[in-house]
């Protein structure tokens, strides 16, 4: 499993395509939504968590799609399937890679987000990071499974969001509410039920993905 992770990391190092896609769409979404909501209005802070998570979701769809598009060249996915390892392990490795890439993108996106919304680094931000980690994990788990499927269908750019977004709603809702509460100064204890929701979602999706992946990739 580590081998696959390492391989994806190496490819990324070479081509930087996934990070480029993640950052481009992430930054653009942040920008657009920042302007969409009146910068001078007092209600601005309310838009903050939504903007952040919209950026995560839109850039995430691209990243997760790319992770399987890349495997189509030279039928590398089949090369992987020929190896003597479990299909489920391939899934976990791919999901982990997507998770790490999305997290890495946050290194750029989060500071930008803070700048746009005039937030100062504090304990709250650390808690936001925690929410981000849980949410992105769930997104990566669902996204990896559905990306593997949608990459084979017609109109694949459309297929993935269509399949993924309804499924990923709990992450969006949980992420936005928890981030919002935390940014407003609440402690982790108060958002506990949301964190639990995210954890449950993550576990369920990872297990289902691990079991279902082989059906998603065989011909």
């Amino acid at each position, binding site marked *: 499993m580590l081998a696959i992770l390492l*391989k994806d990391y190496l*490819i990324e190092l070479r081509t930087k395509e996934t990070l480029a896609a993640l950052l481009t769409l992430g930054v653009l979404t942040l920008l657009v939504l920042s302007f969409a909501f009146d910068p001078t209005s007092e209600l601005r802070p309310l838009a903050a968590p939504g903007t952040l998570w919209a950026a995560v979701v839109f850039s995430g769809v691209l990243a997760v799609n790319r992770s399987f598009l890349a495997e189509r*060249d030279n039928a*590398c996915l089949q090369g992987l399937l*020929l*190896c*003597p390892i479990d299909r489920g392990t391939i899934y976990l490795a791919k999901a982990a890679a997507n998770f790490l890439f999305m997290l890495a993108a946050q290194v750029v996106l989060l500071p930008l987000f803070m700048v746009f919304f005039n937030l100062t680094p504090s304990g709250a931000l650390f808690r936001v990071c925690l929410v981000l980690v849980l949410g992105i994990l769930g997104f990566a788990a669902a996204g990896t499974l559905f990306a593997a499927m949608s990459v084979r269908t017609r109109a694949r750019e459309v297929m993935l969001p269509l399949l993924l977004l309804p499924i990923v709603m709990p992450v969006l809702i949980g992420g936005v509410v928890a981030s919002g509460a935390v940014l407003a100064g609440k402690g982790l204890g108060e958002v506990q039920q949301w964190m639990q929701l995210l954890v449950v979602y993550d576990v369920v999706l990872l297990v289902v993905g691990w079991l279902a992946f082989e059906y998603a990739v065989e*011909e």
Partner: protein
Amino acid sequence: MHEAAIRAEQLTRRFGVVAALNAVDLTVLTGEAVAIFGPNGAGKTTLLRVCGTLLRPSAGRVHLFGEDLRGAGAAVRRRLGVLSHQSFLYPDLTPTENLEFYARMYRVDAARVAELIDRTGLAGWAHRPVRTLSRGLEQRCALARALLHHPDLLLLDEPFSGLDVEAVQQIETLLGEERRRGVTMMLTTHDVERGAALCERALVLARGQLRWDGPSADLSRERVEGLFQIRRAG
């Protein structure tokens, strides 16, 4: 005792309505080398892919080294080496990196990678992305990938197509060496002479069915083409 490396019983594989393979019965013994000829669309690639665990039969069974592929786990894939139209190589990585990756996946020593790079004559290009290699070099690298883990069964889909003379000779040498080690081999090709030279047994596949099965020495180009034309009575 010759165990059957491949045993296909009434193997059928459909794509939609069309049967690419139709009730094929086939036994390949360990150590044999079989060349499969047939017109385009005959089902040669499909046969190889089913035996390579990449496709599941629509009906019938396939056994590899005695194990039914239906319930087979990862272990049987360890004994398989597959070379296909597509190289299974990541275009942005170098041959070395590609082979090292697959070596880790198959739990093979790193030294083996170096050895294969030498044997396939890739040494000069081992540090350039696969994207930049010519088809002949890429094919050699793909073969190296297939041989990494000392497979007992080699499945090769048109290994010589689109290659220049030097590349073809390289591959022939490599395959000859593997044969001497007792590896079972099944390959498809349009090149009747070369296929017959490499393999002692030949099959002719047309429209998903086996038309001919016998020593390759008995086969000539004209005969093969004649077999392509045969239509089923009624």
